[in-house]
């Protein structure tokens, strides 16, 4: 499946901004399920300073600065991405129980043996080891997901003894979808998980954080994914350009399988309609666009996203 994504952000300031610095994570990353053919920015006014790099998590990051006075800023990212469909759904039948996964994650890495003993086999173990090592950072607290007892309480009925982790996550996703009301007016970025939990309301970002928190409370590695989802117009209606939106979901590490995505907002396992931008421990690691402006007074902000299927 091939898509073209156009994501524009418009800032309007009541007073002139003399200088602004920005960090953008709006270019889709490459990984086994996804290939980004090209991705470019159209920024107005033109930035004096523009630099791309890869962050700690392997996401594509752009830094840019506007150094001349301006009263509006438009950042548009246009990317073309191919999503490879899964060959089969065997991943979803991984039978490792959540307890087994937890102990694998808690286990100390293999001892380094002397050079002479290194064999092909050992390198493989080492790789696997590194994957687990990498996953361990997604088990502990992160800036926006602090594990609290309430999370464990909520998740308890999904974590039945000796249940396969895949089944646990499916169950948890279904419960979140059923128990929580989608309500864009209720939360902001700063709303803590405890509130989302007690009022049972939120948006995709909250649901992803909630699921991540529940999983981590049981020693499971879970990470946050930012991206887009393709939306199809209702039958008989014209597709609206720019009416799409950013989306967020989560991913769980399952040894032997790797990272498996789940979308609690739509209660689905992403296949070929989810386009990944970036991943990290939580939203704070993958904030699509943030900036510091000097001056400017009040600002208003609007966003338009268009996910267009090309083939």
């Amino acid at each position, binding site marked *: 499946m091939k898509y073209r994504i156009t994501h524009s952000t418009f800032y309007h300031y009541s007073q002139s901004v003399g200088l602004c610095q920005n960090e953008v994570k709006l270019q889709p990353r490459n990984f086994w399920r996804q290939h980004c053919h090209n991705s470019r920015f159209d920024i107005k006014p033109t930035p004096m300073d523009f630099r791309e790099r890869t962050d700690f998590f392997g996401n594509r990051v752009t830094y840019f600065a506007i150094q001349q006075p301006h009263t509006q800023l438009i950042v548009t990212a246009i990317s073309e991405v191919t999503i490879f469909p899964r060959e089969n759904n065997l991943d979803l039948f991984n039978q490792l129980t959540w307890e087994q996964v937890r102990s694998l994650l808690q286990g100390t890495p293999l001892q380094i043996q002397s050079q002479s003993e290194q064999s092909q086999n050992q390198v493989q173990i080492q790789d696997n080891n590194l994957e687990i090592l990498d996953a361990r950072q997604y*088990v502990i607290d992160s800036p926006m997901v602090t594990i609290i007892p309430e999370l464990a309480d909520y998740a308890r009925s999904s974590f039945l003894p000796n249940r396969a982790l895949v089944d646990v996550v499916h169950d948890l996703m279904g419960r979140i979808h059923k128990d929580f009301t989608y309500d864009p007016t209720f939360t902001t970025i700063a709303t803590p998980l405890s509130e989302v939990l007690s009022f049972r309301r939120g948006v995709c970002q909250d649901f992803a954080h909630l699921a991540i928190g529940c999983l981590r409370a049981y020693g499971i590695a879970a990470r946050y994914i930012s991206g887009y989802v393709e939306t199809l117009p209702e039958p008989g209606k014209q597709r609206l350009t720019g009416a799409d*939106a950013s989306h*967020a979901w989560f991913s769980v590490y399952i040894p032997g399988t790797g990272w498996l995505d789940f979308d609690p907002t739509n209660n689905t396992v992403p296949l070929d309609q989810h386009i990944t931008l970036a991943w990290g421990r939580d939203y704070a690691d993958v904030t699509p666009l943030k900036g510091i402006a000097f001056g400017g007074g009040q600002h208003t*902000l609007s966003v338009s996203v268009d996910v267009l299927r090309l083939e």
Partner: protein
Amino acid sequence: MRNDNNPANDIGTQYYATQLGIYDEMYATENKALPYWERFMGALEAMGSEKLELRRREAQRLLRENGVTYNVYGDSQNLTRPWRLDPVPLLISSEEWSVIETGLKQRAALLDLILKDIYGKQNLLKKGLLPAELVLGHEGFLHPCVGALQNQLRHLTIYSANLARGPNGRMWVLDDRTQAPSGSGYALENRTVMTRVLPDIFRETQVHRLSVFFKALRKGLADIAPHNKEDPRIVILTPGPLNETYFEHAYLASYLGYTLVQGGDLTVRDGRVWLKSLTGLQAVDVILRRVDDSFCDPLELRSSSQLGVAGLLEVVRRGNVAIANPLGSSILENPGLLAFLPRLSRHFLNEELKLSSVATWWCGQRRERDFVLQNLDNLVIKPINRSMGNHAVFGGELSSKEKEQLRSQILAKPHLFIGQERVSFSTLPAFIDHSIEPRNAVIRSFVVASGDDYVVMPGGLTRIARQKDNFIVSSQAGGISKDTWVLASEPDKPISLWTQPKRNQLIDAATEPLTSRAADNLFWVGRHLERTEAVTRLLRTILLKLRESLEFKDSIDTECLNVLLRTLTQVTGTYPGFVKGDAQLLKTPEAELLSLAKDGHRKGSLTANIQAFFQAAFSIRDFWSQDTWRSVDNIQRRWQQRVINNELNIEQLQNNLDDLITGIVAFTGLTNESMTREAAWLMLDSGRRLERALALIALLRSTLALQHEDALQNQVLEAVLVSTDSLTIYQRRYRSFIQLPMVLELLLLDETHPRSVAYQLHQLCIHVEALPRCKGNSHLSKEERLILKAYTDLRLCNVLELTQATENKAIYIDFDKLLANTTALLWQFAEVIADAYFSHSQTSELMILNTPEDEL
């Protein structure tokens, strides 16, 4: 054990009661004092406790006068607390010191390698030498800083360790300070004071000098500059005057010759860091930071921080600025790391760790966690993150409920906790309440990178608890500091901090750029002080008049007094005050007058002005010479002690006002004589001139612009001349005729009289022209035009026309109009100056995308 019969010799070693089982610095493990302690204590004994107490007080006086303070959080009443110094130093023999020194160098080198690995290849994690949770779960690990370290011989430029000696006589490291270690400036100041209060003993005891450390620090910082290595621009980044160790930031800045800056003084453009100065943007090469790393860049790190510079980390990444210590280095302060250092020392250096840390168990490992939980009663439990509260908990002192709570906290997130052995530190002699007593001590040592090696300060900052048997030693908890004397086998040669240029080389004088924040503060120092002076002089005149009116009961005196009282309300802006026309208040003005002097909560009062003056001066502490600072301190402290803290009557107030004037004149004189006529002085004096003009105009408007009867007029004229310190000049010039036009000639138009309005405006014209902004521009700037207009309008006026009495009018209309217009122009002028020069106050705003929306 005090011998009260012989108070002169009561501080000898025989009176020193050490504690069983605790190592004492003086006695070591023997029953006899170590020879070098014996000699030192002998000298103290010969001096006697009374003399020593005098020396101790002398030391406190010097410290206070030098403005050595330590700010205590949550103490708004007494923002700055004087630094306390015990006159008995810690003595360390050169043999022992060389062991400590070697150990510190090794430890610094080891921590440097760990830092480089954590923010580089992360082999320690990959090889399992450090657990992932220990590093990635610590708030000091800053993800955006990975890969941002630059090519330097050493990344950890400054390192500091808290040391204490355990019961077995060995030195232990209690903790490592790697992010922005404080204390070296205090250590230096302690030394400076000690050499003044115990000069003879200091001379006889051969003590290593500290300057070798500061010389190395200078070189170390210059070495890491990515550009301009020959003459890099180095700044000290401070969180500001509210920070606990702000004194030290200012002190080091002036001692090392660096510019002291706050986050708002810096900006990022074109991938470089710039200092915003009056003369434009100046490139910065090295930042010695005293701001915690996560606060340094609101774009990539803590977004709510107002203390940092947006985009700083990106500049670091591009190798265009060096920061000491690098952002992210607080990961090394993770106390859990202590448990892994011996292994890492063998791994990296192939050496055993020379200085042991206090035995530490990191609960992130199952075996260690179980050990800690089983031995909760005998251990100190600490969270690894400072934000979780820096409180060490003594397990044995908890109630069973608290213990249960702690246990479940540890079980829930074990990697966030450590257990540590309880150590009893050694004691050493301290001079407490006239006698020598043992106190537990902690030594903070300082290390700086020099080339690929490290240089250790031969000495350090020793701190003791105030109470006996107290192991919590910290400046926040009100501890006392000590100098640390590392004994030399032969006298040290003095080391000059000056770099020697090559022969016959002429170095360009680099004028330190004046930051806009500093300019703002200088301007306000001038304004607040001048306002204080104007109010003081007027108040003094009023008190004089008040006495006369009570003495002679002359109605003219009373009328004149009333005019002056109303003037005071107008000059101080403390309406309604006397302007309201309340007869009772005018009849018994004493309470209101005292309140206008004392009440710090009242805007416009003397106390409020003095406090504002002091705060502004303190924010740019690095600008003042030692003498000048002493005069600032005198003004504030005397007023505090004698007026604010005292119940005093009107007569006593009079004396204090005289004193205050003397204090103000001392400051003015010192700044006039010691500041070069560059931007800083121009700002200070412009503030002063502006305020003097405004205050004088306010005075004239509410006294001489009013039409009075002749008899009253004469009295008011005299009072105005007294209040402006111009009576003598007037009498000499015009002898015994006192007339309005002549008084105005002197106070309004005489450009040779430093207290006239014309003089102030003329000076402002000259200053504004000299300010850097206007150079090379043939057009007049906005501020130049405004001040020139005010000045010209004044010069064009004719005092005889201005003072034409109009029938049935209470005021001289033209005169009043002139004054009103001048005031308006001056206010505009002040605003334009603020816009043009103090633009640092422009605030930044975080723009962040709100909740992403999605389809259901």
